[in-house]
């Protein structure tokens, strides 16, 4: 996992203005009251200018002036400008103004720090940054930053998102792109306010595209809602032709990008003859296609590891497969290329596929071909009668065979093919696959102390969260499990993990725990109280203050199944059993019930299934009502009476 090679998408910029004169600038008194509402900071002015010099070079110029209204807005008081071997900073300036708009000071070169942006897992990276902080002790104040970055990496053009976060308003923001003659700009506009139009002109043979927005009031994020950046204006841009370190390409379609990337990485798949023979021997006699692929993948996982090296073009181009064969390590491109070569030696055709990896990443904009990827995986089409595909993550030594979890699943990937590939969806896991199934036996004694054993199976994306646990040291396992358990007071007596067999269609992990629970059900006089739903309490979202503004996005489908068997001492018997609850709604289904068994024990069974769905904000109260009922049912208490008291 962890591959962020197609590094930093740089911001854009604006015409360079003359340096601040003595006249006040950005006086806070001039700020409309509506823009201060709910805002920690106000963008007074944000001018981004992207000047495309040629297919091989772009220049991005930014001027931003931001008024910081309170401490929570002070993160806008600093600026970080990225650079690397392909991106050079031509200048970086700044100044700070008081509330009246009088300049307090200018940024000096010794105030700017140069830092390595080593990500902590890369062995080598050329990513660096310059950082400046103009924070002030009293509010409000205004910071102004200007910088320019010259890039020899014109695969990426600017994305303009003038209001990407909540509690942040915008007085004025502009975006301008200047294209040289003969090079067309490709762009996509999203959610531009009514009346905002592209202004297009030709100046000295250059095409100029300009956008402008004004007076965008601050928004606030709501629970189960789209992120603010999905609600506010955006303009995406991309080249139609580009050149990186002598490698020229077109970008008018996904096929174009696929072809360029394919060619950049072609002819790097030669393996040592002994290894080719080894792969042939490995799969010899194995007729099942899936089993053949699994054997090769197992070899890859046992003999390689992930090492990140992000230097220059190395961000795009793989190391030769022979290198990986010799060293046993590589980055995502190198390991994918190597695995593809191993499969090829075993007579199996596979294609590399670019993907935007990350647990919280939304899918790429499929209708706007451009470089939106940061990772690469392998796609193996099966020849079997029923068309099917095996997806392989090549950078993780423990990833289950064919599994695309929250890092790469449920999104689009671009196949790299010599003739130009297309977008294909990676596997999506629904409520049936993302399952947590738990059985607990709780042995309560007369004093309210308990012992419990728990067996929990997690599959699909539920598995993702615990996938790493099985390989850890015992003390580390105990620490993490303890921190996750929703219990106040306990001792963990036993922790064990057992993965599902590798032949299972979706991966899973069984966790077995033994717990001592002192004071689980403290007696109050004659009675003992216990919440039979030991571990799976789902709390209701906080009610919104005011009216719901945004639609509801439930992005994660899952199923929870719980059985708790309560074994009581002879001296305790239930006074009353909570009534069963059954809820069926478009937002999810829920049931819970308690049953007294003939042996004197009590069985609690709970089932919750939540779909992946989106609905209008008008339905929010109904959704909230559902969640409240679930929460209430989850907390229901069982009252036990002491028979010997």
């Amino acid at each position: 996992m962890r591959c962020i090679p197609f590094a930093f998408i740089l911001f854009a910029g604006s015409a360079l203005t003359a340096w601040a004169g003595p006249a006040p600038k950005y006086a806070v008194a001039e700020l409309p009251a509506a823009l201060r509402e709910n805002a920690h900071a106000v963008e007074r002015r944000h001018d981004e200018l992207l000047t495309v010099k040629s297919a091989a070079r772009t220049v991005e110029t930014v001027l931003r002036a931001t008024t910081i209204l309170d401490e929570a807005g002070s993160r806008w008081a600093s600026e970080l400008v990225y650079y690397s071997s392909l991106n050079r900073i031509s200048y970086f300036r700044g100044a700070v103004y008081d509330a009246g708009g009088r300049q307090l000071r200018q940024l000096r070169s010794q105030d700017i720090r140069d830092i390595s942006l080593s990500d902590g897992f890369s062995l080598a990276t050329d990513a660096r940054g310059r950082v400046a902080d103009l924070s002030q002790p009293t509010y409000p104040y205004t910071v102004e930053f200007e910088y320019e970055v010259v890039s020899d990496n014109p695969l990426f053009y600017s994305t303009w998102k003038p209001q990407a976060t909540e509690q942040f308003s915008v007085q004025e923001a502009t975006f301008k792109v200047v294209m040289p003659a003969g090079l067309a700009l490709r762009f996509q506009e999203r959610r531009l306010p009514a009346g905002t139009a592209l202004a297009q002109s030709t100046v000295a043979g250059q095409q100029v595209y300009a956008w402008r927005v004004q007076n965008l009031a601050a928004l606030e994020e709501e629970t189960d809602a789209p992120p603010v950046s999905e609600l506010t204006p955006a303009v995406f841009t991309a080249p139609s032709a580009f050149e990186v370190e002598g490698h020229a390409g077109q970008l008018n379609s996904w096929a174009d990008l696929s072809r360029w990337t394919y060619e950049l990485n072609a002819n790097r798949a030669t393996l040592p003859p002994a290894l080719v023979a080894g792969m042939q021997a490995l799969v010899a006699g194995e007729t099942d296609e899936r089993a053949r692929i699994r054997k090769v993948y197992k070899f890859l996982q046992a003999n390689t590891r992930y090492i990140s090296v992000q230097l220059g073009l190395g961000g795009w181009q793989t190391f030769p497969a022979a290198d990986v064969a010799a060293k046993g390590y590589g980055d995502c491109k190198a390991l994918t290329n190597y695995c593809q070569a191993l499969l090829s030696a075993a007579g199996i055709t596979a294609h590399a596929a670019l993907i935007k990896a990350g647990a919280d990443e939304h899918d790429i904009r499929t209708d706007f071909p451009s470089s939106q990827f940061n990772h690469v995986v392998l796609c193996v089409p099966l020849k079997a009668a029923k068309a099917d595909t095996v997806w392989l993550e090549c950078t993780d030594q423990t990833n289950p065979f064919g599994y695309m979890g929250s890092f790469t699943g449920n999104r689009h990937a671009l196949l790299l093919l010599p003739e130009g590939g297309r977008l294909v969806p990676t596997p999506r896991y629904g409520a049936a696959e993302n399952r947590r199934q738990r059985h607990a036996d709780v042995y309560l004694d007369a004093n309210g102390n308990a012992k419990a054993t728990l067996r929990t199976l997690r599959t699909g994306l539920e598995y993702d969260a615990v996938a790493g646990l099985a390989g850890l040291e015992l003390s580390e396992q105990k620490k993490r499990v303890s921190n996750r358990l929703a219990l106040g007071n306990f001792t963990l007596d036993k922790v064990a993990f057992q993965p599902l067999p590798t032949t299972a269609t979706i991966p899973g992990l069984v966790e077995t725990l033994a717990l001592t629970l002192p004071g689980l059900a403290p007696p109050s006089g004659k009675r003992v109280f216990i919440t039979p739903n030991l571990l799976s309490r789902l709390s209701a979202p906080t009610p919104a203050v005011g009216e719901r503004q945004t639609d509801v996005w439930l992005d994660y489908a899952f199923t929870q199944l719980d059985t708790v068997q309560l074994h009581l001492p002879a001296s305790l018997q239930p006074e009353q059993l909570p009534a069963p609850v059954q809820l069926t709604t478009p937002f999810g289904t829920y049931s819970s019930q308690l049953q007294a068994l003939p042996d004197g024990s009590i069985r609690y069974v709970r089932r919750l299934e939540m779909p992946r769905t989106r609905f209008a904000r008008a339905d929010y109260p109904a959704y909230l009502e559902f969640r409240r009922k679930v929460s209430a049912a989850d907390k229901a208490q069982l009252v036990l009476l002491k028979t010997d008291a």
Partner: protein
Amino acid sequence: MMQPLLFRALLTGTLITATAGLLQAQDAPIKFGSINEADLTDRNFVADSAASAVVLCDFGRSYFSYGGKGFSVIFERVKRIKILKKSGYEYASGRVPLYHANGRDEKLTSLKGFTYNLVNGQVVKEKLNSDAIFKEESSANVTVRKFTLPNVRVGSVVEYSYSVASDFAFNFQDWTFQEDIPVRWSEYRASIPEYFDYRMVMQGYEPLTVTEQTKSTGQFVVSYSGQSEGGGFTATRTAGGSDTYTPLMTNYRWAMKEVPALREEPYMTTTDDYLARIDFELAGTRMPGRPYEAVAGSWDKIEEELLNNEDFGTQMNRGGFLKDQLTPLLAKAGTDPVARVAAVHGLVRGSIKHNGQSSLRATSTVRRAYDQKAGSAADVNLLLIAALREAGFKANPVVLSTRSHGHLLPDMPPLLSRLNYVLAHVQLPDGQEMLVDATEELAPSGMLPHRCLNGQGRLIMPRGQESRWVELTPKERLTSYRQVTMALDENGGLRGSVHQEHAGYQALAQREKLRELGEKKYVADLSAGHEGWSIPKYAFKERDQLQKPLTLDYDFVSNAEANAPAGTLYLNPLRDFGMEKNPFLHENRRFPVDFGTPLEETTMITLTLPAGYELAETPQGLVMDLPEKGGRFLYGVQSTPAGIQLVSRLSLSRPVYSAEEYTYLREFFARLMAKQGERLVIKKKS
């Protein structure tokens, strides 16, 4: 009060001398390039099966050589690691930080490495290639060399060796015996000629298996050409030639065996404070024919140096430019010295923002920091001292090490690099004294930031002999107080009002949270912590009166889940106001629990029952004490005509508890939570 059991000893002079002449006889514990084949099988690692990797041997040696630039320190290391799990692959990569300054540097030489695998019963050995070695400019004075070994698999043994030649005698390599994976054998040897006087400090919670010290005679040949000046020996020569010096050498050997992995736990200062480690500090030099020259030496010297420095001592007398602002503020503050200190503190705190950096020396001048309105901790607090002096106070600097920078104890060798922070000490006219820090925008005058609560600091007085250690103990606690009045209805619904006060360090924390979230989100966050609550009304008080507790009054409504009156109601009023999780989930602990501050948490509830209902069973009261007056929990329920009175009070009276006390602490919290979990049974009167 029990002391934390940190094992820390100054080794100089206290070391028990072992038999002399052993050094030559002692073989190296590891030979680079040849491994024990059994280490490639599983059978040697049954006991470590839970670990992701094991250090088989880590062997380091430091000694001196003499060359063109004078003496240099040569550090040689061989390290061998067994990889047991895929999660241990990271240990197949190494990093060596190298320092450079003023044309002098530390050089990495002869970096070599091997990976050993057992393939079909044969040992296969592959070497580290130069294309697997990388360089990163990590800061202005530090370059990091990183490397990774080839073909690492589960079961591989990797090893590497390198030398670092250092031009910096003061930068003698320290040695860490302990890591986050188990270490089977870790050994360090140091050969030091009599010309160099080092102080050695041992720390940690693991015992040394070997400590030896032997004497021998060394030999250094100093060659010189005509008219050159020898570096370390500094005698000016006119003709070329060479001299041979034969100083007395002290040869040290330290080793630890089977060192357990060190893991991070809650309430630690910094893991560096707990690792088994030995540090070296150059105290002075004793070159042939020259008197002893102290390098680090005494606090006196460090203090004198700081006081005379342009970026420290000088700045404290440069507060004159604040006179005009101070005069009206002091007039307003009146004659109470504490109020006057607070006025000065308020001025500094409000005029300069701390940029988050801890530092001992000013970036440039306090005047400039004031004009920039931002600066490091030293910028802020040296300005504070200057302002206090300008206001007529006897204000002096206290230098210290912050919690993340590690312990500073009076018995440690005095060393400038141990210090990373400065704050103000004020001698009040009535003989009282106080410590003041202006880096926290939301902390009142007299409260130390949490990062400074780290043992003792050194008060530097203008007259050296008056300098002394001062305790950096918190004057305030982490204090919460809640008074709740609530009424139960016969369906089980609750409504009530809460008066809540946060004082001391809790006030600081809550003011910070409030500043970050704003009132609306703060209250939303509060109701999120109480399921089913709505908060129709709230009011904050004393947001800006930092000397006073932060107060919040709010009403809450929690609707009944039932629609009809119930015969019996079960209520757990402390569920909404008590502790959620025992902070100590792990059964044992090797280190002290370092909270930084004492704690006090009080909740008083007055509950009114619906008409015709009564408390059927009254939970038993409880008073529980920690040993040695370490803390107390008090719980009581009482029926009164005004309603049911419930009190829960927790106090932890110390900032630090020893590892021995851990079991008590954990049990204390377990019982407290059980008590807070008890329910009130409320019945309709028959």
